[in-house]
């Protein structure tokens, strides 16, 4: 049993999986009662929602965090670079498009495939922000992207 102190300033997600209506037949033998033996794909995750009342500086800060914290290295570097180059000059509409792009797909790899044009981008994500991401992926200046950019650029003007 556990007691958990949740500090209101930490970005964390409370996820109470709903005892889903979709119960799959148990695949494992010897499973305990109540364990559906579902594999990962059926576990429902909270759906993405746009945040219309979020102040813009907060939105930019959140999207920066979400760009840098991904499930795979390629996206971690790619989206961090995107955030560095673009977040500060995107307007609210563009920020919301980016929000949906990086937060709605449930598989991080899909975003990478779309950005590198290995797979066609679904219509719902095929917009100007996706075009900016594709352009970044092309690396026309042939830069060496050795690692995630450091965060100093955010504070250079205030130093």
């Amino acid at each position: 049993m556990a007691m958990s102190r949740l500090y209101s300033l930490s970005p964390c997600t409370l996820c109470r999986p709903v005892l889903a209506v979709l119960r799959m037949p148990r695949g494992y033998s010897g499973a305990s009662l109540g364990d559906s033996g579902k594999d990962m794909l059926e576990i429902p995750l909270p759906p993405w929602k746009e945040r219309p009342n979020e102040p813009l500086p907060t939105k930019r800060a959140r999207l920066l965090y979400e760009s840098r914290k991904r499930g795979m290295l390629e996206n971690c570097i790619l989206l961090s670079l995107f955030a560095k180059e673009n977040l500060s000059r995107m307007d609210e509409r563009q920020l919301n498009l980016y929000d949906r792009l990086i937060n709605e797909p449930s598989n991080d790899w899909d975003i990478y495939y779309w950005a590198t044009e290995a797979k066609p981008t679904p219509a719902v994500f095929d917009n100007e922000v996706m075009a900016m991401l594709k352009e970044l992926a092309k690396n026309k200046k042939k830069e060496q992207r050795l690692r995630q950019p450091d965060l100093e650029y955010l504070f250079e003007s205030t130093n």
Partner: protein
Amino acid sequence: GKKSASAKVSDSISTQYPVVDHEFDAVVVGAGGAGLRAAFGLSEAGFNTACVTKLFPTRSHTVAAQGGINAALGNMEDDNWRWHFYDTVKGTGDGTAMVTRAGLPCQDLEFVQFHPTGIYGAGCLITEGCRGEGGILINSQGERFMERYAPVAKDLASRDVVSRSMTIEIREGRGCGPEKDHVYLQLHHLPPQQLATRLPGISETAMIFAGVDVTKEPIPVLPTVHYNMGGIPTNYKGQVITHVNGEDKVVPGLYACGEAASASVHGANRLGANSLLDLVVFGRACALTIAETCKPGEPVPSIKPNAGEESVANLDKLRFADGTIRTSEVRLNMQKTMQSHAAVFRTGSILQEGCEILSQIYRDLAHLKTFDRGIVWNTDLVETLELQNLMLCALQTIYGAEARKESRGAHAREDYKVRIDEFDYSKPLQGQQKRPFEEHWRKHTLSYVDVKSGKVTLKYRPVIDRTLNEEDCSTVPPAIRSY
């Protein structure tokens, strides 16, 4: 979001930060494959479960999605390293650090598996299929050096041999680039059509991260951390264990699964297809064990009123840190030290030097400087907290490696090339004198860190040799591995 009925504002810690206490039957830290699996199993069993995560769970870790294999590369090795690699490098550090701070041991952190061809710096892995298709490794002199290390197999030698050869080339001054710290993977001698059809995705990855056109230039590569076999020690039920007076002892109420754990099915070297074990089996095992031992709604034991005070103080300290060294600088120093002193090539003097350097870098943590003083979505702060965690893991890895004076699985030492077991298993056992526990290395490392001083303590724990039930599955005695 909504406050649950059991949430209460606490005023026992600090008045500077509003602290809210929530009560749950079970708290799962981390929403990777195993964590989510455990959380879901617990929830299904009726436990009021919270899942706390730094990032929104995506299915990049999932086995089941899209037929099981995700890759930026069309050509994929069987072992699906992508599911593990990233966690190991960036995420897995938090779980083991939490355990370390609680004064509990971590196990076998020195056993790190390397992939020979990660893109220099970025670390994105290039499939070994490249070499299978005719790609070759080149040093600064333009020499196909694998011909020297493996005259027959050449670039198709095993992963261990290739990684080691690359590292030796760099150590002996034939590395490429301004810092001579990597080698090249050359593909431009292959027909472009072959590259496109047999190795799709390589071109993109090489261009995106290395700025390299593979039809014209070679890719800078380096052996890269692939997987860490070690982690939080558990028994087969997923219960975290510690080792007291020569006996394994369960830590009641604490469980671990997935990348962070070391139930130790992998031992010293993980085999390819065993990734499923970690993700699915042990995540589920934890949930089942909890369901066997606990009931939903059981009263939560009380904790001291100021529990967590140290964590809040640490957070506050880092939020306003105004020292002399940036988080990014310390992190880079740590990574470079691990790369040069605790990577593929391990030998006594270099490991010892690495231990000293890393301990010095640990002391640098007291002089950190952060920039973002904000309270909402403070990436600078989170990455600094992560650095503290990564440092605790790195210390245990390098000190464990320095102490283990043998070669075993992924831990290969130039100065101690053979495995040292209690018997010499390459010969008949009859007539052999059994070595005492202190004089052989067929045992698990247990490492502790005193967080204040950075001092690492190492202890050892026997390997569990017997199966649970000899009738179901007989014990397999140790044997010398040969390729």
